[in-house]
């Protein structure tokens, strides 16, 4: 057998190249493989190289090491490989020249197809040999485009080592996607290996040098893509990679998700976490999962991916199955996935892959998870996303920011905001909170105040603008009750009068020495204001709340933020007055809070007066007089309030009666 094989090999290879009929595809593949094996050894690539500059005329051999690796990658038994090497003549000749290499590849293909390892077998039409190594990413990549271009026959043996493949692929693909974005896209219909030659020629040497370094990367669970690109790839690859990394940062997270997720079957299969991410993004654009994203919104969103417009329009064509100019959730996921794939360097398919069809996506991922389950996924995705988020990517944050801003503009009570904010600040690092905050309304609310500082996108700004005008109705009694600092009250004081229309802001200063009569006058004016306001606000504020507030407001010098601006306005005018009495009030304030109904509020307001007070009996008397007067005013206002309430009720009843009359009359008029 051996002698015969050797003889055959000798006969075949010794006298010259055997009548090897390679198809064009085979020719290209083999030349690439040869180039790869040869390039690693430092020798020139084989004949027919994509770039002539690399040809070293002297050595046209493939080093034994990479060749052996390649053969092992074919996953044939060792003895078969031995046979092949003997047959092709390398053993005899001592090296792998191009001829030998090609023959060997053909024999490998034959062996993989099940044919016996003979010279005769290579004469017939054979499929391309298949290799499954991770190191020699080129093989996998080489095999891949054929799959990607619609055949999908050889996909199943893309193992999880594809992670490494993908990463290395990205490097190459990035290089060439940046400049000749169009040319590879043009070529897919024609010849898959053609497309591969370009990255091969550019990136192979760098790849080989970084192959070892790249190896640890894929096997780390959540390794961000940028890190291996930036750090592990050695010298030559780093700069172009970094350059491209900056360009495609916005979608680097998705790439990581993809890289780290196992491509079970195909690159077009959406994994669970990818799906979740897409769903979150969808939600950011359109809170209702069952409705559409309009074309313009989607266009703005996808344009941020920095893909070219023709590519984006092609992706749209693929993904918008019903061609209605709007994207449902499944369509959106498909489109997003295609964009991500394209960013990772996959050529776009001719047609929508079956795993990206909307029906398939809907069946595979039922939609229900919006509300409760998202809380679970929130915690799950949180650690998952933390590491990627650690890297600072402006565009990524911009994409996230759109996700942050929920369209819902629910009113937020100040204390809720505060509470959530504090918990969030404790729980999450700043970067992370943006994205995981998206799925939940409450969480998104808490993220909102922070995300506002990151605005950089049009959608975000538009949404912000949409959010800013509807300020929540102020409930200062809550804030007041919760407020532990003067600052909050100060914050709400200027805001409250600002938001409420009508009256001008209170004058900043008053005559420095108002006598008690002036105090009374002010109280009267306040009472007038209060009367006006009571009619408006009587439904909202209970009398009980009103009274304590009124009593509290005059009696306390602190800037207690009232629920109404009338009471509020009583504050600033009274403030300068109060300040005079502050020394006196300080002592009494400590007693007053105990008498006032809302204890915590007063306690809160007592604190902001840190100034040390001098007390004198005169001051005390003046204070007591003021107290008496205030109480009287209070009583007056309370009576007034009850009267007005009565009036309001009567007016209501009248209104109801009139409406009834109107309804009775209406049928008459209609006829």
């Amino acid at each position, binding site marked *: 057998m051996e002698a015969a094989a050797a003889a055959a090999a000798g006969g075949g290879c010794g006298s010259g190249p055997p009548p090897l009929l390679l198809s064009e595809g085979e020719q290209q593949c083999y030349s690439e493989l040869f180039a790869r094996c040869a390039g690693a050894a430092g020798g020139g690539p084989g004949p027919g190289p994509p770039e002539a500059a690399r040809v070293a005329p002297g050595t046209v051999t493939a080093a034994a090491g990479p060749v052996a690796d390649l053969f092992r990658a074919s996953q044939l038994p060792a003895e078969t490989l031995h046979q092949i090497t003997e047959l092709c003549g390398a053993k005899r000749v001592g090296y792998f020249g191009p001829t030998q290499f090609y023959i060997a590849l053909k024999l490998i293909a034959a062996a993989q197809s099940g044919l016996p390892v003979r010279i005769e077998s290579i004469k017939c039409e054979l499929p391309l040999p298949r290799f499954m190594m991770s190191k020699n990413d080129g093989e996998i990549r080489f095999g891949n485009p054929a799959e990607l271009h619609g055949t999908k026959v050889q996909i199943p043996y893309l193992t999880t080592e594809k992670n490494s493949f993908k990463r290395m692929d990205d490097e190459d693909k990035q290089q060439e996607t940046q400049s000749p974005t169009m040319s590879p896209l*043009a070529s*897919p219909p024609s010849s898959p290996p053609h497309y591969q030659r370009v990255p091969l020629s550019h990136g192979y040497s760098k790849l080989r040098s970084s192959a070892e370094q790249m190896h640890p990367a894929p096997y780390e669970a959540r390794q961000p893509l940028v890190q291996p690109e930036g750090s592990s790839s050695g010298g030559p690859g780093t700069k172009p990679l970094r350059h491209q990394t900056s360009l495609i940062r916005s979608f680097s997270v998705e790439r990581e998700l993809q890289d780290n997720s196992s491509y079970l079957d195909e690159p077009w299969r959406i994994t669970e976490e990818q799906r979740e991410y897409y769903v979150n993004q969808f939600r950011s654009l359109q809170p209702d999962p069952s409705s559409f994203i309009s074309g313009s919104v989607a266009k703005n969103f996808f344009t941020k991916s920095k893909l070219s*417009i*023709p*590519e984006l*329009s*092609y992706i*749209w*064509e693929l993904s918008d199955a019903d061609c209605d*100019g709007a994207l449902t959730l499944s369509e959106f996921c498909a489109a997003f996935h295609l964009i991500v794939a394209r960013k990772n360097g996959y050529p776009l398919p001719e047609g929508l892959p079956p795993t990206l069809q909307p029906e398939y996506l809907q069946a595979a991922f039922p939609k229900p998870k919006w509300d409760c389950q998202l809380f679970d996924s929130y915690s799950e995705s949180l650690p998952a996303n933390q590491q990627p988020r650690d890297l600072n990517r402006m565009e990524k944050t911009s994409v996230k920011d759109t996700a942050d801003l929920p369209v819902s503009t629910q009113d937020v009570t100040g204390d809720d905001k505060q509470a959530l904010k504090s918990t969030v600040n404790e729980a999450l690092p700043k970067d992370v909170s943006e994205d995981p905050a998206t799925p939940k309304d409450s969480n998104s609310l808490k993220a909102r105040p922070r995300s506002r500082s990151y605005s950089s996108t049009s959608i975000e700004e538009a949404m912000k603008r949409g959010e800013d005008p509807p300020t929540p109705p102020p409930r200062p009694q809550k804030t007041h009750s919760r407020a532990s600092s003067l600052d909050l009250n100060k914050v709400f004081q200027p805001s409250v009068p600002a938001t409420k229309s009508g009256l001008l802001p209170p004058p900043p200063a008053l005559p420095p020495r108002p006598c008690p009569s002036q105090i009374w006058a002010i109280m009267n004016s306040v009472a007038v204001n209060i009367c006006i306001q009571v009619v408006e606000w009587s439904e909202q504020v209970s009398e009980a709340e009103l009274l304590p507030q009124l009593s509290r407001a005059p009696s306390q010098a602190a800037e207690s933020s009232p629920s109404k601006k009338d009471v509020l306005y009583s504050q600033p005018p009274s403030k300068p007055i109060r300040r005079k009495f502050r020394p006196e009030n300080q002592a009494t304030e400590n007693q007053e809070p105990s008498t006032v109904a809302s204890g915590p509020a007063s306690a809160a307001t007592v604190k902001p007066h840190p100034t040390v007070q001098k007390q004198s009996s005169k001051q005390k008397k003046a204070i007591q007089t003021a107290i008496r007067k205030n109480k009287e005013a209070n009583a007056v206002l309370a009576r007034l309030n009850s009267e007005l309430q009565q009036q309001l009720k009567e007016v209501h009843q009248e209104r109801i009666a009139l409406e009834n009359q109107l309804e009775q009359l209406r049928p008459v008029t209609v006829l």
Partner: protein
Amino acid sequence: MAVCVAVIAKENYPLYIRSTPTENELKFHYMVHTSLDVVDEKISAMGKALVDQRELYLGLLYPTEDYKVYGYVTNSKVKFVMVVDSSNTALRDNEIRSMFRKLHNSYTDVMCNPFYNPGDRIQSRFVCLGRAFDNMVTSMMIPVC
């Protein structure tokens, strides 16, 4: 079936024009250009009535020795012009109508793409928009060659 298919915008410039490469393409371009006058004539004749009542299919615009030119106009004044070989007598009016309907559907699909700016050429180079449109037109034209 069709020898040349053209989509002309409202402002009478071509958005898409494609002819079978066998003949001198310039001739078809010229034919399409001159047919625009006929289209406008037909539109104005019918246009006095309400737009709703105006039919989109214009029918045979004018026959020449070798070719027949058919026209179709959409509600947004985008015109489709189709040049058909006269020797192909098997083509009936209904078939032409159905071809125009297909054209119109593909055109609306192109329109639905938010990345397409109305008024741009419908190009199918580089895997961009218009792929489906182009394929559809190819399907209409292939039998001729």
